[in-house]
């Protein structure tokens, strides 16, 4: 019998102006409880001003075994970086 509470992933914005960051996960019966527990587990020292809780089962993750085909196409595209372009040194503000 599996009576385990579902798992939630916790994201916290440490202060306005910054993005939410993944802090970890916890078990809770529902999202409301996940929120309350996230406050107690992850913000006991004012580490946050905003919390997102997301059921872990709702996350679709890439598979590291496919990292080759997924990320390799970006490897040889140096022309996407500003340093690829040769401009004279005396040129300013560009």
């Amino acid at each position, binding site marked *: 019998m599996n009576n385990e509470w579902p798992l939630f992933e916790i994201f916290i914005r440490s202060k306005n102006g910054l993005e939410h960051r993944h802090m970890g996960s916890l078990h809770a019966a529902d999202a409301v409880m996940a929120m309350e527990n996230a406050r107690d587990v992850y913000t006991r*020292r004012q580490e946050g001003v905003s919390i997102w809780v997301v059921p872990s089962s709702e996350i679709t993750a890439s598979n*590291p075994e496919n990292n080759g085909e997924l990320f390799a196409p970006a490897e040889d595209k140096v022309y996407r970086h500003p340093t690829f372009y040769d401009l004279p040194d005396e040129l300013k503000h560009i």
Partner: protein
Amino acid sequence: MNLSLENLEKQFQDRIDAGDNIEPKDWMPEKYRKTHIRQISQHAHSEIVGMLPEGNWITRAPSLRRKVALLAKVQDEAGHGLYLYSAAETLGISRDELFNQLHTGKAKYSSIFNYPAVTWADMGAIGWLVDGAAIINQVMLTRTSYGPYARAMVRICKEESFHQRQGFEIMLTLSKGTAEQKEMAQDALDRWWWPSLMMFGPTDAASTHTEQSMKWKIKRKTNDELRQQFIDITAPQAEFLGLKIPDPALQWNEERGHYDFGEINWDEFWQVVKGYGPCNKERINARVKAWDEGAWVREAALAYAEKKDSIQKAI
């Protein structure tokens, strides 16, 4: 690409050697996974069982200042347990199974928590020595190879330093107090010193896991190195308190640049590990009782969540 097991293992070791972190969905040798489940869960259980000797003193703290500090510390330890259980679960073991292993005695936790906390001075000695020893181990583990474990350690280390400082402050107050208070502090040091040294585990010569753990960067320093580091840091602190460490062989060795120290009673260590310490039964019974008596709350919360969910779906 050759995906034979041998090849995968070599690629894995290459990644570790290059300083790469391993993340949950990455391929890993089965033994790496198992070793981590064992080590992280032991660590989690230690945080949770570690709340028991201190929790016992919250209602009897000598002042409100001491009480809020101890309460906050014990609450932190619950948090540490949660971070670590979550890290262990990323390796494919369920929380229920982890608890089950603790409650049936299949999983171990740090032996230190099988000693009783008999006076208020023990709250000082535990914070100073036990959290102090834990910090040395945990700082090393912030650089461990498994990502979720290393990240949990970073968070834990940030919270630990207050634990040790509040413990030392208790020791300092007692040491500067009446003769009776100073005696209490000395008595606590006498009882907690050797078990604290045992927290680092068997000597390198007797340790079966060290070599592989170092190779996989699960550990970055050996038990003996960590123990020496702890003694070197702690001996001058005891002197500062005007207390005497209960080891006649403890002495600064100019040549080595370290303190020499006496023989640890490993028979006692193994006795406690095997379940015959002063409080082994009491600790596990307290855990099992809390778990069993909380069952109806867990079930009710889940039933409520499911009911709410089904009503929402019906609308």
